[in-house]
């Protein structure tokens, strides 16, 4: 109960600060709408079905992008962690890919992958990939060498050592990467939609901002994205608590 109470107090303080900022700053609605204006606009967007139409698509992109990105990243991270040679060969490309602004690359990826859901999942997965791959590699390398030696002396094969020792040892660090990755998946979905999409919360932001000049609706989309990020982050934390012993 104490945790829920703290969350409610924190939310109330945030909304109060937001409201104060709009009043003290004297901002018009089209620059910074007050929280109650955004809430009223959200109510209308929910009632008309507009919000769900866009949210459902973004949710799908986030889930698929995260699954593809995280799975690829974990497998790559294990390979990087276990083999210095693989790390030397792949690391420059992985780091270089991370250094390239995805916003610049996304329109090309959209064309290469023929637009549609596939292109958006690829863009989302690319954004998710780096932190999880690096976290997995660091986690694998943090395995206790004495335990590894023990397993070797017991005749454990490489696959058994990975499954029974290295991956469990890597989990605390790996989940750090997953926490970052899942929030990046939300950003990735929006970036992908900005590269080419007809529906999704990123599209709704564009329509509200550039098409309708409806700043409160843009805030509704932003708040929805934040809630999606919070929900998935919380889900990862729940899974982490179940899998990682403290």
């Amino acid at each position, binding site marked *: 109960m104490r945790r829920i109470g703290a969350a409610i107090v924190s939310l109330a303080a945030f909304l109060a600060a937001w409201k104060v900022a709009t009043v003290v700053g004297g901002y*018009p*609605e*089209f*620059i910074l709408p007050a929280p109650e204006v955004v809430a009223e606009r959200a109510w209308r967007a929910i009632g008309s079905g507009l919000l769900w139409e866009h949210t459902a698509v973004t949710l799908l992109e986030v889930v698929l992008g995260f699954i593809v990105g995280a799975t690829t990243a974990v497998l790559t991270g294990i390979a990087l962690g276990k083999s210095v040679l693989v790390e030397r060969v792949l690391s420059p490309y992985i780091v270089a890919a991370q250094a390239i602004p995805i916003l610049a690359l*996304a*329109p090309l990826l959209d*064309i290469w992958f*023929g*637009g549609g859901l596939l292109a958006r999942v690829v863009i989302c997965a690319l954004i998710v990939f780096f932190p999880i791959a690096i976290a997995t590699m660091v986690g694998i390398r943090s395995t206790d060498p004495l335990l590894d030696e023990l397993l070797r002396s017991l005749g454990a094969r490489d696959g058994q050592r990975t499954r029974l020792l290295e991956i469990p040892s890597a989990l605390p660090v790996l989940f750090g990467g997953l926490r970052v990755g899942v929030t990046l998946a939300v950003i990735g979905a929006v970036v992908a*939609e*900005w*590269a*080419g*999409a*007809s529906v999704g919360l990123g*599209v709704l932001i*564009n*329509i509200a*901002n*550039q*098409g*309708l*000049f*409806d*700043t409160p609706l843009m805030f509704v989309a932003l708040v929805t994205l934040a809630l999606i990020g919070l929900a998935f982050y919380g889900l990862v934390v729940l899974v982490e608590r179940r899998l990682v012993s403290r």
Partner: protein
Amino acid sequence: MRPLRPLLATFILLTLTSCAPGVGKSPSPDELRAVTLLLGYQPDVQFAPFYVAQQEGHFADAGLEVEIRHEPAPDVQRLVADGQAEFGVADATDVMIARTAGIPIRYVSTLYQSFPVALIGDAADVPTDPSDLAGLTIGTPGMFGSSWHALLALLEAGGLTAADVTIREYPQFNQVDGLSNGDVELITGFRNNEPLRYEARGNEAGLLTVDDVAPLPGPGMIVGEELLAGDPDLVRAFVQAVAAAQAEVIADPDIGFAAAEEAVSTIAEDPDVARAVLDATVELWEGDGFANGAIDLELWEAGYATMQRLGFIDGSVPMDEMVAPDVVGS
């Protein structure tokens, strides 16, 4: 006290000189009123009249010291409405929507006599009758902005809706890539930009223009309601300075190109394309005849009705609250 004496003398000298009457045609820099002009996205040869007005002294003659800044198009309207900038350039169709959404701006002068957006494709593939658009795949930046308005207006003129075509979106404005790649059959684009880029890749571009089918008013200058009500002379001086510079560029595009070359460093990368863009832009400014920024109210009425039929505006804000034709005359 001694160190203060030179400062005091300088202050007195500056005060006296600032009070002296001007002897030249232009006000001295101390007398110029600083204002901010917001243009879209990035410096470009299409903004040549503003560079000419700045470099050739049209703004100074009007008593203005103009700072030019570039902002994303929707931000231009909000910042001007909020008084964070005095002037901006915006699409007329966006002004209708923004004004209906409660953003207090006014369209005060016309920059483009012709509507700059058209449907573009391979010359052999572009229909002349909008009803033949049915079933085609069309690339557009998104469901916003003048490109989207023009597309829906063209479809409506052909008795169609967006449901009768396949829309593919290119929010990064790279729809020419989609057209060249064969992903779409037609794209929306600006007549002074996308056709040139498409032809630069060895294609022959064809156009279906809005002007001939579903007339809409083109981009123009906007100001905030508050500024227009409080200082109409300032607004008039500004738009007249812009119109004078624009007329100068129309009469001699070399002047505009030279000013743009000085203001836009990227023109040096490909001056031939930039020159072609300017020449095509001049044609759009002129339309049926350059009118020094005057607003064509009949065209606005037709465009307002079209935008209302298409559902972009609900008619709650009448057209005469969106335009201020008396600033330069209509």
